[in-house]
């Protein structure tokens, strides 16, 4: 090996191949059947369970856990999928510590919630391994629906529509379906090509055609789809990334964190993926954590997340923050980027310390510089759409013309969570179905 964590610049293979392979292995080992039975037995089968309320897709969690406890994980999986067809991915990527597991009464009782996420994964993995799809289509309605975006919202919408007997065409601008499940989730959360396997499994229901490489605005338009289909669903996500608005952000070595993650996810041999010796990630959300941790796992010597507000305001959960610090990532809060320095390529990032005040964020006047040969911007994404007929408020689609439904990150109410997108896609499908059938 020629490179090491100390090699200057942005270079590949900072760690031996087997180290990288180990670093990017499944970060939460799956429960074995006995572990699952023990974990399931901890569920109290609460009345009107708080975990169900806390789940954006309202999975009947006590029921599926009881089905695991009684040795029927296939039935448990079906319970999950009835509410959330991407339950397998959600089991891996949901911030359960701020959703179902935070609401679990055993969290209140002992600080140790039932391992709902892990149990959901056990059930869905067990059932998926059998290769069967548990749902079938209703008789054909003869209706055609266009779904734009093959991310979690679009896939959930397409599946539910197909189930109701409609024919669905899904348009996706990228080469593969899956959306952020395929391009945006940290690699170690969805190993062994899980995102694609889940898409393939989902499509077994039939009646869904996916056309990749088709971009809204370039190849198709909302009005065109409205003319050709009985209904349209837009689950197009957020295509743009916010700028730092700091001088020097155009220097080489500065890039969007989502692009880094996306490239990483599509790189078969991670020893070929270059990473900086000193990496600075600017932002405070899950994307910042995913970019920082994966930089560290690739062998970066120093990785620092810099967030402009106080730590409590980071949108990455405490669990995610701990995950980052355990991986060796340093988190600096209350520091805002002032300038990116360097001669052509980034060499340092200059920050100003900040303080949260009732009047807003203020700089204290004190500054510092961090060495950096790679900078990732993870300060939020924006809607990149200038379509007629769509009402955009605060960067999201707030209203759509007749015959068009929206869901996922592009829609108001989207929370940048896979599970929320699934819920919105599913609910839009039900609304579309009701609308189409009412028309007769």
């Amino acid at each position, binding site marked *: 090996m020629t490179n090491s964590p100390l090699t200057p610049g942005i270079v590949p293979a900072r760690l031996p191949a087997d180290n990288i392979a180990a670093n990017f292995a499944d970060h939460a080992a799956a429960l074995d059947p006995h572990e699952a039975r023990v974990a399931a037995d901890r569920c109290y089968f609460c009345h009107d369970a708080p975990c169900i309320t806390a789940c954006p897709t309202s999975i009947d969690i006590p029921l599926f856990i009881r089905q695991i406890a009684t040795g029927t994980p296939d039935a448990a999986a079906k319970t999950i999928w009835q509410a959330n067809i991407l339950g397998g991915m959600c089991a891996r990527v949901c911030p359960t510590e701020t959703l179902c597991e935070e609401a679990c009464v055993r969290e209140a*009782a002992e600080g140790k919630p039932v391992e709902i996420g892990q149990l959901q994964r056990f059930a869905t993995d067990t059932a998926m391994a059998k290769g069967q799809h548990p749902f079938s289509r209703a008789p054909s309605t003869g209706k055609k629906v266009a779904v734009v975006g093959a991310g979690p919202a679009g896939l959930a919408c397409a599946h539910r529509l197909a189930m109701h007997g409609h024919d669905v065409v899904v348009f996706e601008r990228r080469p593969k379906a899956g959306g952020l499940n395929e391009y945006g989730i940290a690699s170690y959360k969805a190993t062994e090509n899980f995102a694609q396997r889940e898409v393939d499994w989902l499509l077994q229901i039939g009646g869904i055609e996916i056309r990749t490489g088709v971009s809204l605005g370039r190849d198709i338009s909302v009005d065109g789809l409205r003319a050709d289909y009985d209904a349209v669903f837009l689950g197009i996500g957020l295509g743009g990334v916010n700028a730092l608005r700091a001088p020097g952000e155009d220097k080489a070595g500065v890039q969007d964190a989502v692009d880094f993650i996306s490239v990483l996810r599509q790189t078969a041999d991670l020893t070929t993926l270059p990473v900086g010796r000193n990496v600075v990630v600017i932002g405070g959300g899950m994307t910042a954590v995913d970019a920082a941790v994966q930089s560290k796992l690739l062998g970066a010597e120093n990785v620092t997340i810099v967030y402009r507000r106080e730590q409590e305001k980071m949108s990455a959960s405490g669990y995610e923050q701990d995950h980052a610090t355990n991986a060796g990532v340093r988190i600096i809060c209350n520091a805002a980027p002032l300038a990116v320095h360097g001669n052509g390529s980034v060499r340092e990032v200059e920050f100003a310390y900040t303080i949260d005040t009732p009047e807003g964020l203020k700089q204290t006047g004190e500054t510092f510089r961090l060495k950096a040969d790679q900078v990732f911007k993870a300060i939020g994404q924006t809607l990149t759409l200038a379509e007629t007929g769509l009402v955009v408020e605060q960067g999201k689609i707030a209203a759509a013309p007749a015959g068009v439904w929206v869901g996922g990150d592009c829609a108001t109410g989207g929370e940048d969570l896979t599970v929320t997108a699934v819920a919105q896609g599913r609910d839009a499908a039900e609304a579309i179905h009701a609308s189409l059938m009412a028309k007769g």
Partner: protein
Amino acid sequence: MADLTSNFIGIKSPNPFWLASAPPTDKKYNVERAFEAGWGGVVWKTLGSEGPPIVNVNGPRYGAIWGADRRLLGLNNIELITDRPLEVNLREIKEVKRKWRDRAMIISLMVPCDEESWKAILGQIEDTEADGVELNFGCPHGMAERGMGSAVGQVPEYIEMVTRWVKQYSRMPCIVKLTPNVTSILPPAQAAHRGGADAVSLINTVKSITNVDLDHFSPFPMIDGKGSHGGYCGPAVKPIALNMVAEIARHHETRGLPISGIGGVTTWRDAAEFMALGAGNVQVCTAAMTYGFKIVQEMISGLSQYLDEKDMALSDLIGRAVPNFVEWQDLNLNYVTKARIDPDACIKCGRCYAACEDTSHQAIAMKPGRVFEVLDDECVACNLCVNVCPVENCITMVELPKGTVDPRTKTPVGDYANWTQHPNNPGAHAAE
């Protein structure tokens, strides 16, 4: 540290914890390991008549019921009495007793129900220097088909007859082990008493099928696709055993008859409960078969600590709860309690609500924010909410003081009055 020295019908042991007649006491090797671990005594696994030993199945001998994390709650067995030659057992019993003089050594016996057989076996064991015999009238499987074990224990006349033979042909203290597979435990206990038994021990195992193999459609344990009933034991049978022990302890004919308590004793607390209901000592099997012999050390330390904290001697504990074990008709119908939910301890699972609303008296209200409150005008104090609540002491039953009006019945709490005095009881008036 409290003195746990036990004297049960003249048989002394350093503590009241004996191993019951079962696989753990089948041979010298196991029994010596048990004594090394601290057991006060053993009842050697049941000996049969001289001659070719019985044979056991060569497939599974045990079935089980599990709780969470495969915690064993109940065990059932189809093993028969010892399958080793009589002379080997007798030699080993003698060797062990000579080496462990301070421990109790009881020999369990089961031979055909005729005088000659009993006379013969009693003569054969006389030389072992054992402290006593236990008559196995309890095993419900296998041997019962051959007219022994529970086949004897289910017929009080046989119990009395054999007990008399044993007292006639042996000077050893005699314990009669009873089967729970009867409609009432009292006639067998009375029969043993009449026959001259020095003590009874109970319960032996309960006839049972632990489960059915749903692939082969056979009861379990399954032997080549077939299953036979077994004898059930372990923590699951403790409530049955406690009741039977207590019934004998309080009955006017059998009161004072020493009892060796058996049935699911797993911890010091179980042992203390058996003793409070009248057992002079306890015998243990399933707990040892589940966890090994070392558990006796927790039983010793736990019972000692309990007696110290209560400032009681072991003899003070024995039978202490018996006077409080009464018939239903003697219960105070003017004892009124209401459930109280501690909102600070409540974890808002709602199980009390589901249980009360769906299956009981609709006496718990679910308020906004998942606050659960008891409706005193509906609460009959059934205790189901307490039993289903996962948090200990979150829900308690609080007694209404005398004179308080019960919001449910709209009547003040009165003095003690039981069913025999109740106006709704036709018998109460007829007796006058």
